[in-house]
């Protein structure tokens, strides 16, 4: 069985299982830069928040998969990823870490750890379960 690197809320169940290299996006400039590089569809996008505006052009231009560190399927990014049918795992936590996201009470180290661990990894998203979305190593 493939190695599950992270788990979170599955926004919608789908047989789509996109694979790519995780790209952590920290700023709008990162988003614009990725689109301009022409390599948007080579990457699974990792973002900190669950809001939708931050990723707006990436979603619109055909992002293949998204991982967030906060938010839920009811969050705006969750709603939009469902509408775009872009597989999305929200509030992902590392399976090898005890650190969890808590609203209003999560220190910076939590986000840094996830970004550091996942950025650049080759993965695929498994979104077949009704509730749990999985980030699986795809080496």
């Amino acid at each position, binding site marked *: 069985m493939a190695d599950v690197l992270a788990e979170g809320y599955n926004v919608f*169940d789908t047989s789509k299982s996109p694979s790519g290299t995780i790209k952590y996006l920290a700023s709008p400039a990162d988003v614009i830069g990725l689109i301009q590089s022409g390599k948007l569809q080579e990457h699974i996008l990792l973002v900190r928040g669950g809001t939708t505006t931050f990723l707006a052009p990436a*979603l619109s231009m055909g992002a293949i998969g998204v991982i967030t560190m906060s938010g839920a399927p009811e969050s705006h990014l969750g709603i939009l990823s469902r509408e775009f049918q872009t597989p999305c795992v929200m509030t992902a936590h590392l399976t090898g870490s005890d650190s969890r996201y808590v609203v209003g009470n999560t220190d910076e180290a939590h986000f840094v750890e996830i970004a550091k661990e996942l950025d650049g990894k080759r993965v695929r998203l498994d979104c077949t379960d009704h509730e749990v979305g999985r980030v699986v190593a795809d080496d």
Partner: protein
Amino acid sequence: MTTTQGKRATYKQRYQDGDEGLRFQELTYTGNFVGMEPVTDGIKGDQMMKSRAKSGVLEKVSKEEVLKNQFTIDELNDLNNYLAWNIWDVLVMRATEGVSGMIPRQEYEILAFMHEFYRWPELLRMTTDEIGAQGVMDIGASARREIGTKINSVHDWAIGAVGFGMGRCGLLALEAIGPDDYIEESNEILKFMQRVLWGKRQDGYLLNSQDRYRCQIHEPDFLAQLTSQVEPLEHGSPKHSAFTQFNAAAELLSFLDHYDCRLGLGDTGPYELPDGNLLILRDLFVNEEVFHWSDVCEDAKLPHCYTLALVIDPERMGLNEIRVNDISTTFTRPKNYIEAIVGGAVFAREKWDTPMGEVYPIKIDDLGEHLGRVQTATLKLYTKTSKMHRRDLIWNGQYVYYVDMILPHLRKAGTYDKACQDYDLWEIDQRVSNYYYDITKRGFAQETVPSKIFSGAGYLPFSDGADVRRSKYRWGL
């Protein structure tokens, strides 16, 4: 289809007496009912909240009741408690989304909440004085025969849930007011909300959650005009893809134009069609002319609103429950309804007041050009927004809430210009302007707001013996 193929639709059971619906989340609500059984989400939660009311204001109420100018303290408290639960029901999970990285939404939200509570009562009273209580109900009723109108669930709900509920809650949390301050003004806001919602629904209820999450406001003859334009869609076909892609892209722009909030979209339904399929009507407001940043949408020649008719086959997805909630958003179980879309139509309304006879359909084969315009505007608006400084983003977002939430009602009443000219609608009250510096201290916007507003913990009741005429007369005591 994926994991739901072959499962039978059971969603109609949700409409039977005694059915408590499904649970969409594991969390429970306490609010002002400390020591009592925790309240769930969904249909069961609605039933529990109604059973705890002291008045009849949460049951079906008559037109005569709605035309009365004054709520009792019990009625105000019942509405306060119900709205607090309803806010929790629709937003507690959304509120886990954390920072935007683009728009400081929590900051602009809390400023708008408080601004609304201070300023809206005067504006809504002026509007009621201009057109009368029946006129306010007629504003709501107008939505029954229109598409592309912002007189919709989220805007109508926001009058009470946001302007009164969250605004009062935020000011209580900031200790700027006490529980028995501004009762008269609270009555003014809630009466306006009640009249609009009652006029729109006309079944005696106010909110979709009171009616098992249905917002079936359109007459059959009106719906027939729209469904006559529906084109069949086969999952996996280019046409299906064109329709669903356009839906998603336009919805995204409607979020962006409204600063990442729900005011840009509005669902009604579900309407059962003769063949057993379900219709959701979805307004996507992609160009709001009162926002100066919407110039990129104007440049892209986008209409005020696209309206999509989405026809869903409940059997295809094994539908167990469908909710059109009070912030105009559709959620289903199973969650993925997109693959079960079997028909669609698209309409455009050029301006907010374009007559219904001039709203025009767009063939799905012609959506490509519109999609290009939507994507162009999205990229330009994103680039423009990314260059804005924090203060501009916060006050722009504040305006989206504070102005847009009552904009459709003032427009329809013909009092928007008066609100701008005589009441300085677009000015910022000095108290709220000063709060700008307080909201980031001690985690007020990031922690206090989510914990008090979205958990339901901060909606303190009015005292039993409080005077319904009370405003605020003492400061600093």
